[in-house]
C-alpha cells in the first residue's frame, strides 16, 4: 500500500470542510453519491509539479481510459493537478509493460485479467491496477444475425474463432454457464479481421464489444453479440495501471493523474461531442461515429456495478477475487498469486472520492 504523503494529509484535513460545504448545499434533493454528478470543487492546494508519460495500451481511439487522458490533457485538468503528461500509445502487445518496467512510461492501461496474468507470469510483471474503468469485460462473442445462432448452446457444431494464443477464459466460462459441449465446437485461432465472420470462415467470433460489432454493422452485416457478463461470468475491463515501484515512490502523482483523468471522463460524459472532437485530434482519420460507439459502449460499462454509487473507476476486492477465481478455474494464469491484493490498489480512489463524488481539484 502507498505510504501517506503530505498531500494526502492535507486532503484528509480538508474533508471536514468539504462535508460542511455539502451540508450547506441548498439542493436537498440532490443524491449525495451519484457517479453522474459533476466533480465537487474544493480549495486549490499547492501541488508539486511533476512530469510523467502515460502510455495508452493500444492505438489512439475512444477507449474510455484513453478518452479520460485526452480530455484531461486538452482541458487542462492535468495541468491543474500540476502534471505535465506526455501521452503515448503502445503499438505492439505488451510494449506498454516493457515501457513501465524500463521507466520510460509511468502509467498505462491494461485489461484487469491481463494485470493478473502478467503478475502470475514467469517472469512476473510487477504491475498494479489503481482504477477499474471497465466494470465489465471488453470481450464478447459475435455471430451473424441471420445465422440462426440464438444462444451459446447453438454454437455446438459450429466453428468459433478466438484471438490470441488460445481460447480465453471468458469463452470457456460462457460455455460452462450455458451448458455447451465444447467438444462439439471447432475452435480456430484467428487474427483481428472481423471479415472472417462475414466470409463465414467462422460462425462465432471473439470480438471487442465496443469495436467490432459496430465495424461489422458498418460493413452491412448485422450481428448478435453475447456478453459473458450476461451469463454471470465475472469479467472486468480496462484499468489504469502502473508499476509497483512507481506507485510506492509516487502515490501522490498517481493520485493526481487519476483525479485528472477521471475528471476528463466525467467531462466527456457530459460533453460527448466535444470529447469525440478531442479523440479525433489524437486519432485523425478515425471514423467519428465509430469512435462515438466505442465511447458510449465503454461509458455504459464504466457506469455499471459498484461504480454507479461509488464513482467511475471504483473497484472492490470481491470483483478482483471473482475474476481471479475464474482465471484460475480456466487455467489462464501461469500459477497462483501469492497475494492477490498486491495486484490492485484502491487507495487513490478512496482519497479522491467522497460519497461517490470526485473531489476537485
Amino acid at each position, binding site marked *: 500500500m502507498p505510504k501517506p504523503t503530505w498531500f494526502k494529509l492535507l486532503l484528509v484535513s480538508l474533508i471536514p470542510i468539504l462535508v460542511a460545504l455539502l451540508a450547506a448545499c441548498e439542493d436537498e434533493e440532490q443524491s449525495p453519491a451519484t457517479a453522474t454528478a459533476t466533480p465537487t470543487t474544493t480549495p486549490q492546494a499547492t501541488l508539486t509539479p511533476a512530469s510523467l508519460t502515460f502510455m495508452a495500451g493500444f492505438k489512439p481511439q475512444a477507449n474510455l481510459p484513453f478518452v479520460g487522458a485526452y480530455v484531461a490533457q486538452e482541458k487542462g485538468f492535468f495541468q491543474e493537478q500540476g502534471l505535465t503528461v506526455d501521452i503515448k500509445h503502445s503499438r*505492439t*502487445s*505488451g510494449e506498454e*509493460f*516493457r515501457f513501465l*518496467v*524500463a521507466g520510460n512510461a509511468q502509467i498505462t492501461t491494461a485489461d484487469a485479467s491481463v494485470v493478473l*496474468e*502478467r503478475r502470475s*507470469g*514467469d*517472469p512476473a*510483471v510487477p504491475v498494479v491496477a489503481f482504477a477499474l474503468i471497465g466494470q465489465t469485460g471488453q470481450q464478447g462473442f459475435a455471430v451473424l444475425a441471420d445465422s440462426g445462432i440464438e444462444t451459446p448452446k447453438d454454437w455446438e457444431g459450429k466453428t468459433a474463432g478466438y484471438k*490470441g*494464443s*488460445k481460447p480465453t477464459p471468458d469463452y470457456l466460462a460462457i460455455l460452462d454457464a450455458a451448458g455447451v459441449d465444447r467438444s462439439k465446437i471447432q475452435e*480456430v*485461432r*484467428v*487474427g*483481428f*479481421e472481423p*471479415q*472472417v465472420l462475414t*466470409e463465414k*470462415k467462422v460462425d462465432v467470433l471473439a470480438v471487442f464489444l465496443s469495436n467490432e460489432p459496430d465495424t461489422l454493422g458498418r460493413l452491412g452485416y448485422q450481428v448478435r453479440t453475447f456478453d459473458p457478463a450476461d451469463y454471470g461470468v465475472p469479467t472486468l475491463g480496462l484499468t489504469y495501471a502502473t508499476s509497483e515501484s512507481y506507485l510506492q515512490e509516487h502515490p501522490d502523482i498517481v493520485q493526481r493523474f487519476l483525479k485528472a483523468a477521471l475528471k476528463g471522463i466525467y467531462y466527456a460524459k457530459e460533453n460527448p461531442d466535444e470529447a469525440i472532437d478531442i479523440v479525433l485530434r489524437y486519432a485523425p482519420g478515425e471514423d467519428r461515429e465509430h469512435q462515438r460507439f466505442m465511447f458510449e459502449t465503454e461509458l455504459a460499462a464504466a457506469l455499471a456495478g459498484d461504480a454507479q454509487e461509488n464513482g467511475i473507476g471504483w473497484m472492490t476486492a470481491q470483483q478482483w477475487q471473482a475474476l481471479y477465481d475464474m482465471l484460475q478455474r480456466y487455467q489462464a494464469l501461469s500459477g497462483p498469486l501469492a497475494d492477490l491484493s498486491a495486484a490492485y490498489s484502491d487507495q487513490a480512489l478512496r482519497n479522491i472520492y467522497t460519497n461517490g463524488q470526485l473531489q476537485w481539484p
Partner: protein
Amino acid sequence: MTEVPLHEPWEPLALAPPRWNGTLRAVAAYVLPPTVALAIGLLSWEVWTRARDISILLVPPPSRVIDRFLDRPGFFLGEGMTTLYEALLGLALGAAVAIAAAVLMAHSRLAERALFPLAILVKVTPVVAVAPLLVIWFGFGLWPKVCVAALISFFPFLVNSITGFRSVNPGAMEFVQSLRASPLDVFLKLRAPSALPYLFAALKVSLPLSLIGAVVAEWFSGDKGLGLVIFTANYQLDTPTLFAAIAVLAVIGVSLNIGASLLERRVLFWHEAFREQG
C-alpha cells in the same frame, strides 16, 4: 553435318567432384568462426545483464534462455519443424513461380517490361498487410503461411534468375547458335548452368526470408509454429521463451544457409569461385 557436343572450356563434367576432406574443411570454415563469435557474444551478453542488473522483462540473460529451452526442448523443436515445413514449402512455391517468370522475362524484353513492375509490387507489399487477408482467402490451414513465405521468397529468385539466364558467355552463345541448337538446348546447356550461381545466391537470401514469412503468417492464424510461440511470449512478456524461440529460428536459418552453401560447393564445384578455394 557432324553433331558437335555443346561443351565449353569450363564444362562442369570435365572436373572431378571435391574430396570429402575438402567438405570437412568447408564445414570447419563455415561453422567454427560463427561459433566462436557467438560464444563471445553470449558471454558478453550474460556479463552485461548481470553487471547492470537488467530486468529479465527487458533482456533475459542467455543462461535463462538456455534454461527455458532445456525445460522443453521437444516443444521448441516441434514448433520449429512446423515453421520450417511451411517455410520450405513457401520457398519452393516462390522459387518455382519466380524461375518460370524469369525464363519468360529473360527471353522477352516485352514480357519483362510487362511483368517486372508487378513483381516489384509484390516485393514492396508488406507481408503483414496481406497475411490477414490470405487467412480470409485460404482459410486457417497451411496455405496462408505457405503463400506468405512464397511471396517473400519470390523477388530474390526472380531478379537473380533473370540476371543468371542472361549472363551467358557471348562466345559460348555464338558457338551454340552456330550449331543451330534449339532454344531448349540453349536453355538447358547454356542459360541454366550460367544461372546456377545466381540461383544459389537467391536461395541463400530467400531461405531466411521464407522463415520470416512463415513466422509472420503464424502471428495471424494457426495453433502451431515458432511464430505463435513468439507472438504469445511477446504478449506475455515471457522474454526467455521469446528469445529461445528466436534462437531456435536462428539455428534453423543458419543451418539452412550452411546446408545451401555446402550444396552450392558440391553442385558448382566447376565454378571458378570454388575451384580457386580447392
